[in-house]
């Protein structure tokens, strides 16, 4: 049991190995820092975290004596121990912070108006909190040329760089690809890549998040929005079964960027570029925007409630004839709540209707990082991009297992449809085109089915065959639970509203069930936890920032 005194406030840090910055954070005190990052090695190069440290001693008589060290020390490099005293706001430390900031700002161009980082820039924040407003610099600033093509997704505004070297350490330690390095010396230092080796690894854009200033910028987000206009919600990446915790930044129902959100239970600090850039389909104007009914007279658009009513009636009619010939195809990307509602609807029609897990996209093999210098995976693994491109395979499987243990596969469903054994089917909640694209054969297989309802994001061979086309919701529009490869159930929240006239998938299923109200994920979670034992941990309703583990779901097949 160790106690640290931060600005005279005692903090119990247990037996953890912390540095001054972390210990101070426990006490609610911010020590400004640029180069230090929890996921990277310590270099103590920025000197921003200079603090006074000392030791508190109690002699036999109970007399307390504090011995401070004569010089300020970098907080990131100084581990704390029992009885340590940290002072961050005294004259010495403040003076050090001010001087450090002044020297950091010597060559900084102060082009905040045109900088995309403005608003979430640590240099701005710390200058405001810890800096002094004036600079004594009279000489001309260094303005090295920008390097807009550091990599396919990243550009560098060289003059804004404060040489914290976070990005360099990231490519060396986390991605292992080591593209970035520091060239030149002293105040002429610059970040650069070698000729012919651009910053092109699959985790490259993380350096933009790591960069405490606006030097490294995402080309995707460049100049598209000012960050203070963005609305940020917690979400989960639906790119693969890693289920990275993310932040969705949107403005006026348009998603502008995704950022990783720290989650020690899921992926850690980072996310891959594939997931980060995998939101563009959300804003695509080609997305299905109407509920379409295709009959003999042609195609016509209907209201959402009409569409739900039609879907309900048709499926019920077919189920009353022969429930064994009515199939429901579940997408491995839909949320647990949506799967639960749809499965409930299927059960309401008849317990003998067939539930099927939809196609699961698998691309290559799991890609782990860091790599060694020959590009082979190295240990210890710090980040994994999974081959299984399904955000919620385990969650949907858990729901389906609850209702039907003995299920056909998607291939068997297609074969049955082809051979005329399917009267009606509902293919639910399409997946994003990066994850899975239906083939023409799949569409053709449905030609013999009397009633086909297809819920998709984009028109596809499936929707071409559908009698009822239901526009699906993108990941940014839904609220619910996604279960990743390790059985970690995380909550995702809606960042934007569906387009005008449309309803979210969950709302559509509620209408199918003729249940009143709106989709409220927390309540549905409680309902599911009560009904399905495998989802017991969801009974808390609010899953918190990091999510909860459903161990049983991990083992199911």
């Amino acid at each position, binding site marked *: 049991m160790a106690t640290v005194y931060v600005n005279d406030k005692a903090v119990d840090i247990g037996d953890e190995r912390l540095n001054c910055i972390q210990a101070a954070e426990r006490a609610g005190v911010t020590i400004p820092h640029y180069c230090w990052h929890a996921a990277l090695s310590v270099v103590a190069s920025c000197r921003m975290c200079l603090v006074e440290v000392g030791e508190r001693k109690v002699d036999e008589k109970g007399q307390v004596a504090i011995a401070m060290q004569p010089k300020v020390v970098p907080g990131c490099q100084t581990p704390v121990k029992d009885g340590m005293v940290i002072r961050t706001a005294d004259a010495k430390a403040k003076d050090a912070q001010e001087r450090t900031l002044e020297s950091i700002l010597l060559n900084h161009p102060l082009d905040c*108006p*045109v900088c995309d980082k*403005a608003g979430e820039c640590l240099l701005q924040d710390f200058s405001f909190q810890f800096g002094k407003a004036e600079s004594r610099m009279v000489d001309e600033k260094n303005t090295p040329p920008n390097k807009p093509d550091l990599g396919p997704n990243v550009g560098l505004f060289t003059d804004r760089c404060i040489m914290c070297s976070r990005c360099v350490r990231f490519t060396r330690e986390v991605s292992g690809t080591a593209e970035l390095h520091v060239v030149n010396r002293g105040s002429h230092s610059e970040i650069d890549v070698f000729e012919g080796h651009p910053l092109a690894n699959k985790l490259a854009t993380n350096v933009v998040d790591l960069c405490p200033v606006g030097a490294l910028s995402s080309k995707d987000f*460049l100049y598209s929005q*000012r960050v203070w206009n963005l609305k940020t919600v917690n979400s989960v990446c639906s790119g693969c079964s890693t289920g990275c915790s993310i932040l969705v930044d949107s403005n006026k129902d348009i998603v502008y960027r995704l950022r990783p959100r720290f989650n020690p239970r899921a992926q850690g600090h980072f996310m891959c570029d594939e997931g980060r850039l995998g939101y563009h389909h959300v804003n695509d104007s080609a997305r299905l925007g109407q509920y379409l009914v295709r009959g003999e007279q042609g195609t016509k658009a209907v209201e959402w409630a009409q569409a739900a009513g039609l879907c309900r009636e048709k499926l019920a009619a077919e189920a009353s004839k022969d429930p064994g010939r009515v199939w429901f195809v579940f997408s491995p990307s839909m949320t647990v709540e949506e799967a639960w509602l749809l499965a409930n609807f299927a059960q309401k029609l008849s317990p003998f209707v067939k539930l099927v897990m939809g196609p699961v996209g698998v691309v290559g093999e799991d890609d782990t990082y860091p790599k060694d210098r020959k590009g082979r995976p190295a240990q210890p693994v710090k980040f994994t991009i999974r081959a299984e491109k399904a955000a919620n395979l385990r969650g949907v499987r858990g729901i389906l297992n609850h209702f039907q243990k003995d299920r056909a596969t998607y291939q068997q469903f297609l074969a049955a449809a082809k051979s005329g054994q399917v009267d009606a089917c509902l293919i639910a909640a399409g997946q994003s085109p990066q994850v899975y694209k239906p083939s023409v054969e799949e569409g053709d297989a449905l030609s013999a089915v009397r009633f086909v309802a297809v819920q998709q994001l984009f028109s596809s061979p499936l929707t071409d065959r559908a009698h009822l086309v239901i526009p699906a919701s993108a990941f940014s529009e839904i609220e619910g639970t996604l279960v990743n490869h390790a059985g970690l159930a995380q909550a995702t929240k809606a960042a934007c509203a569906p387009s005008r006239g449309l309803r979210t998938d969950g709302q559509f299923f509620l209408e199918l069930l003729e249940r009143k109200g709106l989709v409220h994920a927390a309540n549905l979670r409680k309902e599911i936890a009560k009904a399905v034992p495998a989802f017991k941990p969801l009974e808390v309703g609010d899953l918190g920032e990091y999510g909860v583990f459903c161990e049983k779901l991990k083992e199911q097949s």
Partner: protein
Amino acid sequence: MSQAKPQKVKWVKPPKLGLLEQMYFPTVISGMATTLKHMVGTLTGTGDKNIQVQSYPEERPTLPPHYRGVHRLNRDPEGRVKCVACYMCSTACPAHCIDIVAAPSPWPDREKYPETFVIDELRCIYCGMCEQACPVDAIELTTIFDLTGMSREEMMFDKEKLLSVFDKTVAAGTDPVRTQPGRLGVASLPAGAGLTGSSSAQS
């Protein structure tokens, strides 16, 4: 909420009324006399000196240079739009009437410029927050006050229109007062200094 302290409150005593004044009608009559005096004065022309009216379309007012009328987008000495698309104006705007789309600039000496810059002049409340927010003195409110249009679309001022307001006001010599003169480098030079040279004498 605590009561205000007595010594901090200024108590105003109502004026004492005499008997005649309290009888109300004499004061009404004297008031009527004043009213009548002004009316007769105006009608007969003896009170013309009191008249403070300008016959507007014929007599046009000369407004002070700090008047907040229609916006203009300033040009830099090379005639390009000064704006750097920082969104400060649209952020400061309480009416949310400024819409900017930023893009990498086509010029080597700048990184960002507004691809489109639209002000909804109907939505604008002419508070002048945008010109105060602007870090490069690119947006200003001019003394043009009689803004009319036949449609809403016409009142959506785009970049070209706003720049043309600049050209018009520079040509007319009615440059607005700089909001923050000095210490801003090139940006704070009088508008159009590089273009006309003479207009700076106005402000």
